[in-house]
């Protein structure tokens, strides 16, 4: 892309330090009613001008808090910086008067937030929001500011910028809003941009676009970038240097290539191996980091990671290790770091030495458990003004699922994959088509027949926080269906059964009296699984069951789902947007786009040799957690956005973004056909 040259801004005073930002021994505390949470404990890192630095860690590790501390935006009065210095061009930001700090915010340092849907003000025009910092910080005139705004929107790749300025946020998609956020961040030519999970809320193809944009911009405009993320693939594609945080402390620092190639902290090793990866063969099980991160209210005395660390020694539990230089340019807070570097993760028992191939499931290709034929689910969104507006959420879907099989359903947001699940669960009614379950048509059943169907088909939801009734204890939640259906004779028996189910999903019996909010996200997800199992179902719809969880917890839940499948002979429909996770768990994969099936194939066939251009683009867009590979990889970034399902393109729904598309694709709706044995794709170019 041809980038317009940025308007120069008054140069700042030359500083002697080569570092733009130096965070030294930062301590942040949150005072809560139940005690002091030590959210950040003595972290230090430095950022050079024009460099991309990543802060990696799981939720609650303090990565966002430390960046809010840089901006002095901690929630007062609970959050306070209790120690350390934050030097920006040699000036300690923590000691600046409010007036000067306000000048730095937005002008020298700007911030991009995770949620593009809520970080722009919906009642102000885009133009107003972009020109605001220009008028305030640089004292530009309105015309000059508007000119600059047009220039900025062009820079972030928004088409037709002059017209866009007078539009409001709801007229923009998520990806476009994130571009606008970046434009606002860039407005005053900052020296540093802090991006807090900038692509987490976006689809993979949009994520790839935004990542490329930010990387190009930082290189071309020489802006330093601090990227906060939990996604190791994003780090690999992006970062020059990496800081790994765990439980409020820095675990490891180093260049991205070094850290990924030879991690020197067991936590980093754990993180890297618990993510299912597209660039490596699928192992039998995901290797996980057992347990949970410590409660920062009462952290253990020794190394924070020791309780979960397979390589811990007695000293680890007693002594809190400091971050030390362990190799040239490598820092680690592990007393066995040098040893780890010498013998590698397998030597310390951090990784299994042998690679186990997955055992192929013995699936009988007979009468399928679930057979979906030409399923259509439309939503009538007509209002007074717009007459007859119909969203074709699912538009002619056919697939079947064998007993004991896991079928993965992937696609970007808005492709209708969740609606498929909800229609199967009869939470939505099908507009047309047939759902055959165990040989019986369940598309339009009601009353007692529906009730008995519902006993056999259960669901696990994405959000572990809102899928459990906050006013019921865990025991009540799990026991309720057993009592309603009289699966257990009385309350005591139901409670005992609930306790048994809790242990089966890897929780503890005493949790039966707890309320959902007293558990962590991963634990709640396990409760959700136990609730589904309480009905003794044969089929479970898993609707993004791990996408709200941290990577180390994700792997635990995936392994649990696989174990339960074997134990109870369950059949899964696994709905997800994460292609690597889907590859790990599924036997067969269905790829959807705008309510239609693009491709269906056995897992290995699909990932090894995707036929449909959309599947290829999806696989290309996923960043792989290996910087060496990312550098050499020539990924094609799919341009454009998913069209509105209210007004889908004519012909092949994918033709607007397809690299192969020609006029013929605009005319004909491609049928799903068997291109190779058991490998179906809907594309006329094949």
């Amino acid at each position, binding site marked *: 892309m041809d980038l317009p040259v940025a308007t120069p801004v008054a140069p700042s005073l030359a500083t002697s330090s080569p570092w733009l930002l130096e965070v030294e021994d930062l301590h942040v505390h949150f005072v809560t009613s139940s005690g002091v949470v030590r959210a950040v404990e003595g972290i230090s890192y430095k950022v050079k001008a024009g460099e991309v630095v990543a802060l990696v860690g799981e939720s609650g590790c303090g990565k966002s808090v430390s960046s809010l501390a840089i901006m002095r935006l901690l929630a007062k009065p609970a959050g306070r910086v209790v120690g350390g210095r934050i030097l920006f061009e040699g000036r300690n930001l923590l000691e600046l008067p409010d007036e000067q700090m306000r000048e730095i915010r937005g002008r020298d340092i700007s911030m991009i937030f995770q949620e593009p849907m809520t970080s722009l003000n919906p009642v102000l025009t885009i133009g107003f929001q972009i020109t605001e910092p220009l008028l305030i910080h640089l004292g530009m005139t309105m015309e000059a500011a508007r000119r600059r705004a047009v220039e900025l929107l062009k820079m972030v790749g928004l088409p037709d910028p002059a017209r866009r300025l007078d539009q409001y946020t709801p007229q923009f998609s998520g990806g476009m809003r994130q571009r606008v956020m970046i434009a606002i961040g860039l407005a005053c030519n900052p020296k540093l941009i802090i991006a807090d999970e900038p692509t987490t809320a976006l689809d993979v193809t949009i994520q790839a676009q935004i990542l490329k944009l930010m990387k190009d911009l930082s290189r071309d405009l020489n802006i330093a970038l601090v990227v906060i993320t939990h996604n190791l693939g994003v780090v690999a594609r992006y970062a020059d240097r990496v800081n790994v945080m765990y439980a409020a402390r820095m675990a490891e620092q180093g260049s991205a290539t070094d850290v990924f190639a030879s991690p020197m902290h067991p936590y980093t090793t754990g993180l890297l191996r618990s993510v299912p990866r597209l660039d490596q063969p699928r192992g039998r099980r995901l*290797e996980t980091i057992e347990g949970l991160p410590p409660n920062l209210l009462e952290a253990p005395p020794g190394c924070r990671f020791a309780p979960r660390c397979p390589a811990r020694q007695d000293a680890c539990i007693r002594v809190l290790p400091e971050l030390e230089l362990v190799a040239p340019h490598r820092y680690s807070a592990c007393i066995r770091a040098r040893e780890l570097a010498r013998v590698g993760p397998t030597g310390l028992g951090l990784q299994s030495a042998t690679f186990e191939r997955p055992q192929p499931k013995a699936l009988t290709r007979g009468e399928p458990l679930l057979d979906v034929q030409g399923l259509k689910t439309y939503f009538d969104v007509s209002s007074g003004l717009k007459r007859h507006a119909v969203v074709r959420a699912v538009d002619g879907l056919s697939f079947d699922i064998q007993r004991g099989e896991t079928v993965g359903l992937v696609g970007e947001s808005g492709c209708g994959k969740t609606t498929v699940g909800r229609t199967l669960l009869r939470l939505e009614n099908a507009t047309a088509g047939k759902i055959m379950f165990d040989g019986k048509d369940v598309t339009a059943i009601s009353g007692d027949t529906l009730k008995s169907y519902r006993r056999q088909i259960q669901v696990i939801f994405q959000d572990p926080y809102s899928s459990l009734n906050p006013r019921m204890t865990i025991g009540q939640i799990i026991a309720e269906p057993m009592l309603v259906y009289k699966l257990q004779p009385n309350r005591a028996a139901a409670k005992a059964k609930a306790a048994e189910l809790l242990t089966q999903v890897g929780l503890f019996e*005493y949790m039966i009296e707890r309320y959902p909010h007293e558990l962590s996200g991963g634990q709640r997800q396990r409760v959700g699984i136990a609730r589904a199992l309480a009905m003794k179902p044969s089929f479970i719809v898993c609707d993004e069951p791990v996408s709200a969880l941290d990577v180390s917890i994700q792997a635990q839940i995936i392994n649990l789902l696989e174990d339960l499948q074997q134990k109870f002979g369950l059949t899964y429909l696994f709905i997800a947007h994460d292609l690597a996770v889907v590859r790990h768990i599924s036997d067969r994969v269905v790829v959807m786009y705008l309510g239609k099936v693009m491709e269906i194939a056995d897992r290995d066939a699909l990932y090894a040799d995707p036929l449909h251009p959309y599947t290829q683009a999806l696989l290309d867009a996923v960043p792989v957690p290996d910087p060496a590979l990312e550098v050499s990889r020539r990924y094609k970034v799919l341009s454009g956005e998913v069209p509105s399902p209210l007004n889908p393109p004519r012909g092949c729904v994918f033709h607007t973004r397809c690299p192969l598309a020609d006029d013929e694709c605009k005319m004909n709706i491609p049928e799903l056909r068997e291109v190779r044995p058991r490998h179906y794709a809907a594309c006329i170019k094949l």
Partner: protein
Amino acid sequence: MNTAAVTITYKVPVRRHPVRLFITQQPLGAAGLIIIVLMAIAAMFAPWVAPYDPLAINYNAMLARPSAEHWLGTDSFGRDVLSRIIYGARTALAVGFLASFIGSTIGAIVGVVSAYFGGKTDMVIQRIMDVILSFPIIVLAITVVAVLGKNIVFGLDINLVIAIGLPMVPKVARVVRSSALAIRELPYIDAARTAGFSHLRIIFRHILPNVVAPYLIMLTAFVAQAILAEASLSFLGLGVTEPTPSWGLMLSGAAADFYEQAPWMIVFPGLAISLAVFAFNLFGDSLRDWLDPKIKL
């Protein structure tokens, strides 16, 4: 596979007795509850607590200032204000609390039902609520009292309670409906539906407990309004009638004519209403927090 055993210890919280927990965690709410209980006891045992007969007219002590004899003074008929306030607590608490409790509870159920079923049901229920809402409270109450007449049960006019409670129904229904609409979309309601639970169970077991916060806030706020509405109705001769002691009547009756000579006639019943309202609000707020498992330890 990695088999290094990892043991993680968890602390099991000990749950204490709920009443003791309420007192220690919500001292303000406990204070409110104590005030309410004291008032209720005084009202129940009024003949033993009150120093005078509230109806006894004493022409020798008309408009007497507060003194050792009459702590809170006397009114224009020489009746003891303190005794009248104590007896008046009967009507105030009974009508005030019952009316707002019945009105808010019906409102909450109507709101949840309306939100849960949605569509046509919602439409019909909300239009009925609109109709009720379009009448001024007093006009509506007058109509109800006029149509139903008096219906005294245990010394309490049930129709008066209905007349005061009815106008609250649409207001509570509106607020609760909007909370319930948000809750209806949450996955745990979907989970209850996929489990095949009945509508009744989903409404009463899964949605209602989660709208208890707006319900309690409205309920306690309406206690005050109900006491005042009772006063207005009594003033119009539709509620409690003279000479029965009632806080509202004491405020709005003859007291208005004498506020310059005898301000105590108006100040003390006013204080009584404020204290009752204050106590209900304190208790209501604390109860809301305390019922929320997220705030409990």
